[in-house]
């Protein structure tokens, strides 16, 4: 699986959303991505890439797009 596929799968499995909804998805856009859903998403991304996100990054992780660029800090190119 490519990094992009792993990244998308984390969103799709956590929030049960379709591919076409991903690109513009932001925190609290959908009922599933609330503070509880955020914990599940963060854990899923950490697991997928075998990383540990800094607490500030967990707080700042506010959209699908923003998350992609943030992961470059962890040497993960998407």
């Amino acid at each position, binding site marked *: 699986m490519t990094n992009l596929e792993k990244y998308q799968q984390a969103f799709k499995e956590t929030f049960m959303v379709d591919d076409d909804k991903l690109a513009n998805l932001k925190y609290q856009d959908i009922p599933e991505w609330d503070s*509880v859903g955020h*914990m599940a998403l963060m854990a899923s991304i950490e697991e997928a890439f075998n990383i*540990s996100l800094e607490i500030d990054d967990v707080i700042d992780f506010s959209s699908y797009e923003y998350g992609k660029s943030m992961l470059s800090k962890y040497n993960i190119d998407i």
Partner: protein
Amino acid sequence: MNLASLPVELLAGSSLHKIQAQTLPPYSEEAIRFLAEVSSRLLKSPEIREYPDIAGFGYWCRRANLSKLALAFDKKYTRLGRGLAFHIAPANVPVNFAFSFAFGLLAGNANIVRVSSAKHPQATVILRAMQELLELSDHARIRRMTSFVRFPRDDEITKALSGISDARIIWGGDATVNRIRTMKTKARCVDVCFADRYSVSLLGADAICDADAESFSRLIVGFYNDVFLLDQNACSSPHLVLWMGNEENIHSAKARFWDGLSEYLDTKLEEPAIHSVDKFTHLCRTAIWLQPINQNRSQSGRIYRVELEQLPVGIENFRGQHGFFFETTDNDLQMLTAILNARYQTLTYYGLDPQIVTRLVVENGLQGLDRVVPVGMALDISTVWDGYDLIGTLSRLIQKI
């Protein structure tokens, strides 16, 4: 007493008489793998929507966090779990039995956990996930080390289990702790006791006046979570609010802060009528005992505030529930210093340097305050809690020179 004949209900893991106290080193791969799988299961379960505290536990025991804790743990000594840990879990915080178990397991112990008779739905969800995993051969070792049981408050059973324990983790406040500590244990048994505690919040008026909309909203949500998620019943939820700043700023900050909290509360479910009655009764009682300079009730009645000029010694005995606060201005923290005793557990802060608090405690040799954390983190339990390093305390050192 024969363990097999004890009248307990087995909720997950092995029967009491099948428990093997074959210990592991702290943060063993077996323990981390088990808890990480519990985490994944919980975070995928639909019930976390209704019970965010289950998500909180699941998020805490994810692999990334446990690996981080393992990395930060003492490497100076060779360590091993103490043996068999017996946990008496509290009724006031539904998920604490799971944290308590995780601490015991991460320290390397076999664990018998007495789950509260209150039958919280959170316990059902967490225990179901654990049991499904414990049935897998992959976790056979953990299964032999684990027993979750429920039994009515019964001193005979508690005595029998105390007699075989190498560590006891006793939650539930002063009365429970004192009763259980009279029971005989092995001579080397270590007790970790969570007694009744009291917590405060220290707010910087300037920072609250200056906060932009986003950080202000974070403050309000954080304070709400600290207080209302457990209805102000947790030891670490603040009951007393101390303000720092000049008079004018404190005045504006109070207005902004309490109005903001009240508005946020309006977005939540309405509170049961009995809560309002409790708060009003408590208000009348405190008005007789203490000399408030002002009493405020938010428009919806969710927040009751009693303003005091002086903090009386023993104010911790006047704790309210469901959103009842005392507040005062304490710029040099002299009043806090005068009342701090061993009952004081957590101080949450906003807009201030926490060093002023830790310095105050250390320089004055005070017995109170074990935790100084930002607003929003009052309930964030981890391996250091209530002044204990739990993994350190629940494991033993093997010294070699």
